[in-house]
């Protein structure tokens, strides 16, 4: 099958470091941490008291007051990043067929803040106190629906839910939908707003989060020997995927090309990865095959790199399985060292970081790398950004449940 080519023509992001793409990228290059003590709620009884929160945020700066109470925070973030991506792509200034323009987003959890608020109302005042907006605010597909309403996008529209891999599955699905001919343009990526007492408490109960509460900026240390868990983050990162001919016809700015996607399932455990890394390797190999490239052509791996003891060790093993000796020449980095783990939004910001690396010839660091771990002995771009020419980048995202997903991006050439 002769595949249609898909390029990226718009980017948008909001996260703990910044409320737009350019500032996010500058801070990632500087190695700035967005992690600090949680301010949204009382953390006295929680083991982890730190997160990469979005600070100085007032929804009224972005939305009509009437809309604010109808949108969960995760949908607000999606709309903000979506607006930046749409404006960046200049697509609204061109003519397009709205029935060929879709939205596919990832959300790992969805409107959990709304869920908590309404559950509290029910426990206090009974079921008649539940807001009629509860269900439409909370469901994890509503952000994609809201964007279609905002811009009149009448094409394919759905949400992928694979925990921390959600945005990668969304982008992979968007790639396939355009390749197959179901749409010409898709607004895609991921969104999450789960820095809430219930969600943080739940991850604490799993012992999944870092408890380095006395030194938040040093808490997230992917691949470092002293890593002790991930840090909750929040935000959204959206991209405009567009069929090449469609983009060229309107003279769109092109950030890069999406050339492959691979998926697999560990079939092993609800939260723990297979220690050999074979599930992740299988997904990386499927992605490289889909892109039609050899492992040695990859210049950058945007790792899942969560800073949990098990993930970083297993992911390193997986990279070695797939790349062999070449694994030691790869540059590997983790946005999570600075942005925390934005769960369903994570793969979106990672794709943007890969595209920015292609455009600038700079690769952002993995910060807080101090103590080498014999199980993690690859080049993780420790602490300082480097100059590095990137033609092909892959982005790994692995979700609880054993969902492995790998996206392959390429610098655009005619």
């Amino acid at each position, binding site marked *: 099958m002769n595949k249609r080519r898909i390029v990226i023509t718009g980017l948008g992001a909001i996260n703990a470091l910044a409320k737009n793409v350019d500032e996010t990228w500058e801070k990632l290059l500087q190695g700035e941490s967005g992690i600090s003590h949680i301010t949204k709620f009382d953390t006295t009884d929680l083991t982890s008291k730190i997160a990469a929160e979005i600070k100085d945020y007032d929804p009224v700066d972005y939305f*009509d*007051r*009437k809309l604010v109470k109808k949108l969960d925070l995760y949908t607000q973030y999606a709309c903000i990043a979506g607006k930046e991506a749409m404006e960046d792509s200049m697509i609204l200034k061109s003519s397009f067929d709205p029935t060929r323009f879709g939205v596919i987003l990832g959300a790992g959890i969805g409107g959990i803040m709304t869920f908590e608020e309404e559950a509290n109302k029910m426990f206090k005042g009974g079921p*008649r*106190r539940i*807001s*009629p*907006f509860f269900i*439409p605010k909370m469901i994890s597909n509503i952000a994609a629906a809201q964007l279609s309403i905002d811009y009149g996008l009448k094409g394919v529209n759905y949400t992928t839910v694979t925990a921390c891999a959600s945005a990668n599955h969304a982008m992979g699905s968007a790639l396939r939908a355009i390749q197959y001919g179901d749409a010409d343009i898709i607004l895609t990526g991921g969104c999450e707003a789960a820095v809430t007492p219930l969600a943080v408490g739940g991850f604490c109960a799993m012992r999944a989060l870092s408890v380095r509460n006395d030194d938040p900026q040093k808490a997230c240390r992917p691949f470092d020997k002293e890593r002790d868990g991930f840090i909750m983050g929040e935000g959204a990162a959206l991209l405009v995927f567009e069929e090449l001919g469609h983009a060229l016809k309107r003279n769109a700015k092109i950030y890069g090309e999406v050339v492959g996607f691979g998926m697999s399932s560990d079939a092993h455990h609800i939260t723990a990865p297979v220690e050999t890394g074979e599930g992740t390797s299988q997904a990386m190999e499927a992605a490289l095959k889909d892109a039609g490239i050899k492992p040695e052509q990859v210049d950058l791996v945007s790792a899942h790199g969560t800073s949990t003891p098990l993930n970083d060790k297993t992911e390193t093993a997986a990279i070695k399985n797939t790349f062999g000796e070449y694994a030691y020449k790869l540059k590997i980095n983790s946005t999570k060292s600075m942005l925390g783990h934005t769960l369903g939004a994570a793969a979106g910001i990672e794709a943007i970081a890969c595209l920015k690396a292609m455009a600038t010839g700079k690769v952002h660091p993995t910060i807080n790398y101090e103590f080498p771990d014999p199980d993690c002995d690859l080049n993780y771009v420790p602490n300082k950004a480097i100059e590095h020419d990137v033609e092909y980048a892959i982005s790994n995202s692995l979700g609880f449940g054993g969902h492995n997903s790998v996206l392959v991006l390429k610098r655009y050439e005619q």
Partner: protein
Amino acid sequence: MDIFSKVKEIIVNELSVDEGEVTLEARFIEDLGADSLDTAELIMKFEEDFDLSIPDDEAEKLRSVGDAVNYLTSRLN
């Protein structure tokens, strides 16, 4: 505070409309831009703030500010 003033205050907050728009004749959906979910929430707010329960078959008849004021007045007297 009289019932109309209190109803007006609730509607201004819930529907994010200007106080001047909230006349006795104003209808929630046609004039004040509410949808079916907004009106359901408005009824809940009346129940909460006036400390009473409004049965669904009666709630359905409250389509304007005047309907609500008259209904609440009759219930509270």
